[in-house]
């Protein structure tokens, strides 16, 4: 069959780090093509290259048999390639009709006419969405419908969905599957990225599995089963080189320091329960949308759980409900963010100032004078302990490498002398050498009796660090494993089934 789009040897690197490497992919008209892989496998980057968000570093894209380069998403859309992102790109303060026709406005627009036109159009797609509704009032499923309607309106021949079902209810998922089939019947090609293997097996015609920035296999869906997909997703060699080592014995469990009971927050954290013990590293694995980060953010007071039926969090056998992180820090819970650039530090401030800000959150009297010299000494002690490579504590954080920035974030957290530290993706965007240093440091923390929770999307990291592994799926911890019994396949199986 003729291909609609072909990628030939496409690679994309970000400052020398390959996000996708030598990828070949073809998409046929009227097919549903699922792209599967672990977090960080390169799926989203590949799709963004297809949708014109990124331009490939090497290789070529062929559209309708002609080599093509998309300079922007609007350029891609003009060529019939649209992407529906996980976080929708709609303007929340505008109506559904205005969003559909955004960019297509005439010189003089009659709002009523626009609404009638949108209503007809939406009905033709069997979308029951009120065109006059403000987008911010719509649920995730309806927002997605609007986004799809906008793509189809622009005569898209290929629609790319990034995790389309992650935020949908079961009923909305059912509607989405029907919609995908209808679009397919109209000859529109669909690519969807998903972590739900059963959805891929149920809906798609072909499946491509990516691992470590490369396409591992592309085949007809009928030739796949769950086990083959999981095997293709996790059977890596590169990681084995990085994280190889003898399976160590788990540290003995200390006292139960944290007990999370039936915790709920909207659609993201759903009735989850688990415990964390002192003196151990508890690894938390799950795919995107599993609710790991949100769960631990609720524990640390960064997010609030539902007021009614929101569950109970007990820290050191005492029920707690933090509304801000400050009381959590005072009690001894620290959350180290996965998004250090946004939430982790002030990039234009010095290392000393950032570390000092961490100390301030511990309940130090704000009237206490802290001299720059004191702050510098404190920061110097921590930078030495963690081996931050900087000229001195007066260096600005923006000038540091990703690994050293992460060490500053760790210093800022650990200066608060926590009893429970939650490290969310502690080695994301960090070079290999620093990964080893951070891992050693995490082990030291657990050896000293601290309770450490490591949230990671990278299985080898979970296996290398954890004494006990919790696997989350769809907002809930669904499986607990000792390190002695955990394998990549077992963890992945629990995460996707």
């Amino acid at each position, binding site marked *: 069959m003729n291909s609609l789009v072909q990628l030939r040897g496409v690679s994309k690197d970000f400052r020398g780090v390959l996000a996708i490497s030598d990828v070949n992919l073809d998409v046929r008209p009227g097919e549903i093509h699922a792209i599967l892989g672990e977090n960080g496998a390169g799926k989203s980057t590949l799709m963004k290259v297809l949708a014109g968000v990124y331009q490939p570093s090497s290789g070529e894209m062929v559209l309708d048999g002609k080599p093509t380069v998309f300079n922007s998403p609007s350029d891609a859309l003009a060529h019939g390639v649209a992407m529906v992102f996980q976080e929708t790109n709609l303007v929340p303060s505008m109506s559904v009709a205005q969003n559909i026709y955004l960019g297509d406005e005439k010189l003089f627009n009659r709002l009523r006419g626009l609404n009638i036109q949108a209503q007809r159009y939406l009905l033709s797609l069997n979308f029951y969405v009120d065109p006059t509704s403000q987008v911010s009032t719509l649920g995730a499923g309806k927002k997605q419908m609007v986004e799809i309607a906008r793509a189809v309106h622009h005569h898209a021949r290929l629609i790319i969905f990034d995790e389309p079902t992650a935020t949908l209810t079961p009923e909305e998922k059912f509607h989405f599957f029907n919609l995908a089939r209808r679009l397919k019947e109209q000859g529109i090609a669909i690519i969807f990225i998903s972590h739900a293997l059963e959805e891929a097996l149920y809906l798609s015609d072909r499946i491509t599995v990516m691992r470590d920035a490369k396409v591992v296999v592309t085949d007809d869906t009928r030739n796949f089963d769950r086990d083959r997909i999981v095997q293709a997703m996790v059977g890596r060699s590169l990681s084995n080189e990085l994280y190889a080592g003898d399976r160590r014995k788990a540290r003995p*469990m200390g006292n*139960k320091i944290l007990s999370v009971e039936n915790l709920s927050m909207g659609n993201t954290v759903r009735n989850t329960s688990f*415990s964390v013990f002192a003196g151990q590293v508890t690894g938390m694995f799950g795919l995107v949308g599993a609710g790991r980060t949100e769960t631990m953010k609720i524990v640390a007071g960064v997010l609030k759980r539902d007021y009614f*039926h*929101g*569950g109970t969090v007990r820290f050191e056998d005492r029920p*707690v409900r933090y509304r801000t992180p400050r*009381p959590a820090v005072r009690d001894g819970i620290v959350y180290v963010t996965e998004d250090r650039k946004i939430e982790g530090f002030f990039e234009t401030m010095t290392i000393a100032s950032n570390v000092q800000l961490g100390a301030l959150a511990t309940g130090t009297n704000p009237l206490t004078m802290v001299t720059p010299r004191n702050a510098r000494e404190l920061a110097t002690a921590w930078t030495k302990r963690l081996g931050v490579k900087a000229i001195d504590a007066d260096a600005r954080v923006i000038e540091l490498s990703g690994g050293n920035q992460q060490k500053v974030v760790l210093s800022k957290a650990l200066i608060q002398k926590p009893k429970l530290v939650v490290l969310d993706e502690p080695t994301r965007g960090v070079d290999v050498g620093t990964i080893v240093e951070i891992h050693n440091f995490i082990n030291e923390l657990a050896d000293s009796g601290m309770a450490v929770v490591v949230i990671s999307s990278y299985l080898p990291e979970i296996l290398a660090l954890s004494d006990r592994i919790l696997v989350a799926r769809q907002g809930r911890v669904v499986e*607990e494993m000792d390190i002695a019994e955990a394998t990549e396949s077992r963890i992945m199986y629990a995460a996707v089934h």
Partner: protein
Amino acid sequence: MIAAIWKAWANFRGFDLTGSTVPPMDGPLRPNAKLDAMPVLMELDDVDNLTAAHDGIFCSSGNDLLTFSMTSDASQLQLSARCPMDGPVTSIAALGESLAIAVEGRGILLEGAGTASRPLTIEGLNPSCVTAMAFADPTTLFVAVGSDRHAASEWKRDLMTKSASGSVWRIETGSGRAERLVGGLEFAAGLALSGKDIFVAEAWRHRVLALTGGSQPRIALAALPAYPGRMTPSASGGFWLAMFAPRNPLVEFVLKEDEYRRRMVDTIEPAYWIAPALVTGKSFLEPIQGGARKKLNMLKPWSPTWSTGLVVRCDDRMAMLRSYQSRADGGVHGVTSLCETGGRLIAGARGSGKIVAIDDETAA
């Protein structure tokens, strides 16, 4: 109005009034079916108070005091003697040739080498609810009293009426001098001695306390997902703890609904209460044992787990190490008594009427 202000205050201060949640069974309490896999030494209705003594194993079954010995291949228990008592036996303790037997309504009876049994009368001690006893030496007996208001067999009523009148006593058996070490406990259900520490299981507060000298009780284990009961020291160090029934959100909810609970206690037979049980499935009138039944991926609140089998191995500080469980669909429920003999733990599941042997060395 006051309730609304109280709720607002709770929200402001950060404590939780709304939750009727229970702690998860994970870590050392990770679900397993190891207790079901253990060899059954004997089936005996209403088995309770297993106690290892120098000349065999004592236990009770209703009003009878039984003595057992192990068969030569240690695969079965054989009955040596049966002694009917004047009421249900609620607790037994043995040390050397000293034996203490608590009988509901009668109190504590003491027996020594070659001496006839004599009653021990202690002023202020409820003779109907002696739940656990342990000898520190042949003349010093520690006694746990579950409740001052109810008999031991009315333990569900004690939970539902929140009497909080349990206590721990130290008794000189020779002189009959008694000292109340601590009171106001919510059903002291188990007792174990360890050097200077006395560990006491406070069932309705789901915790184990450590009493040391005259100081305030220290919490050794807290926020347990089940009701802790009898404990026994292990020859290899540490302790064994039996938890006789699981907690569930529905019971926690009922415990917060005072009016509902009052009416339930007044109008319904205790066997059919929304309350924990040693075993379920004996009558269709009982609450459904669903083992957390799921429908459309939602846990059904009307079918939580009411009974289970749970034996926990603890270290010498009472920190939990591992557990042996019989889940909702298992057959060794309501473990109320434990004793060690011949290097094995013998557990009596009063709910299911079974005595099983746990070989920790091989099973762990």
